[in-house]
């Protein structure tokens, strides 16, 4: 499997990263080089092998249903590039 300029543009769009034509041209061989290399994994026989789920045997713990957080609006908004009236503000979205 290898990528072409259209695929690179599609991936960039999914990842929300603007790319110039020039960058796309450069990324095609770069990504293909890396992808070609990682594709060697395909040769490993994984019959009957379950994908790893927990790195070290461990069980998911659950916490009790208690309100222990929140009410920290200032901390939440403190680093916001644009915050108004207690909201984060983003370029207007038309749905």
């Amino acid at each position, binding site marked *: 499997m290898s990528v072409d300029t259209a695929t690179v543009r599609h991936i960039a*769009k*999914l990842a*929300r990263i603007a790319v110039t034509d020039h960058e796309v041209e450069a990324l095609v061989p770069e990504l293909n080089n890396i992808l070609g290399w990682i594709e060697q994994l395909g040769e490993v026989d994984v019959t009957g092998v379950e994908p790893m*789920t*927990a790195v070290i045997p*461990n*069980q*998911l*713990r*659950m*916490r*009790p*249903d*208690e*309100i*222990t*957080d*929140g*009410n*920290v*609006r200032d*901390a*939440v*908004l403190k680093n916001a590039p*644009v915050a*108004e*009236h*207690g*909201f*984060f*503000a*983003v*370029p*207007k*979205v*038309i*749905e």
Partner: protein
Amino acid sequence: MNAPYRIQGATGEWEVVIGLEVHAQVTSKAKLFSGAATEFGAEPNTQVSLVDAAMPGMLPVLNEECIRQAVRTGMAIDAKINAWSRFDRKNYFYADLPQGYQISQLYHPLVGEGEIEVELEGGATKKIGVERIHVEQDAGKLMHDQHPSFSYVDLNRSGVALMEIVSKPDMRSPEEAGAYVRKLRSILRYVGSCDGNMEQGSMRADVNVSVRRPGEPFGTRTETKNVNSVRFIMAVIEYEASRQVDVLESGDSVVQETRLFDPDKGETRTLRSKEDAHDYRYFPDPDLLPLELSDDFLRECRESLPELPDAKRKRYEQELGISAYNAAVLTAEVETARWFEELLAATGKTGPEVGKAASNWVISDLFGALNRLGKDITESPVTPAQGAELIGLVADGTLSGTLAKQVFEIMLETGDNPGKIVEERGLKQTSDTGEIEKVIAEVMAANADKVAEYRGGKDKLFGFFVGQTMKAMGGKANPGVVNDLLKKALG
């Protein structure tokens, strides 16, 4: 059996196929993965933790109550509970999604297949399959009308726990879809896993609709997002079905897409903002481990389940001798059933002896009064104990039906107990034959002409004498006794 629902197109009949993905907010104090509160209506961004705002380095920790409630919900619809499940990330960018992914369950949901039986008009029932229930996070909220060039983001809902209840494409009419959502809502509220409040967004549905010629394979479907009332769900189905029929009959094909419902126009339209977000790149969330539920946990979930509406309805019919219609009405809402059962308990009696009278009184008298007052049963000015006392007074002959209605009106006004009202206002029904005979004699004396007519064969006049006697006694006479004595006196 009802006639199947069909859309009459220009070229013939079409069948509509409906599947629903209902998002139900899990009843919990705190969010699915953070300790922030979930309560509705707070000031913007106040119920937000640093986890909900996806600050760098923040990590999710699972709320046990949300899992418990989802498991109980699954058990309530006889679904397969997966003791091993896990969380996946659904990746997409949107301003209401701080992490850039929603933690959800794609590959291994908590709850597998189950089913819900719905009642249709005319007493028919139908089983609607449930594909799965998975647990996931809600997104925040965007407001578009506060500023000319900005949308505002409120993350209060961000991270609130949802159950996504995915039906099979088993519904074939707006009515069936409506009945399914109502029944699902009823079950959720019985279980206590969701408050079912559709106006506040606690329950909303993605409506999947396609059409086909009867008997043919499924057509291409559209998904109309976030529809938040039963009426709107039914409207979406009607609109989408006829729109798709028009598209197909004009020789075009239906586009698989996400649509939005406009309640003002009663129409759906293409939702543009999420158009190219199809590739969600799901993968297991590496911040969480697989969720493994112990037998003890599952047992506790099962044992904590209340009696559910279907079982309750059958029991009302069988044990309490209540009519199928009354039983359905009394069990549809958990609060009604709860009120009714408190009333039954307060009567101290069981079985058909009290079931029939109590159910009739609740459905006709109490519901009638609540309707007039614009209140629901949880706001009833009369308590179940007071209702039980009233029913008891009728059963032991203290009150006639007419008197009972009178007493009930006074109870609604004053909040007093019926016994007290009867006592204070002397509204007790009398079976005192001496007193009744005395009144009958007076009535006959005052209406000698009518007595003669009656005795001359005008049988119809018997009712007149009953009415006059009852009136003279202020409605307090036992009607049976009045009848008997009148018959004797008139000869």
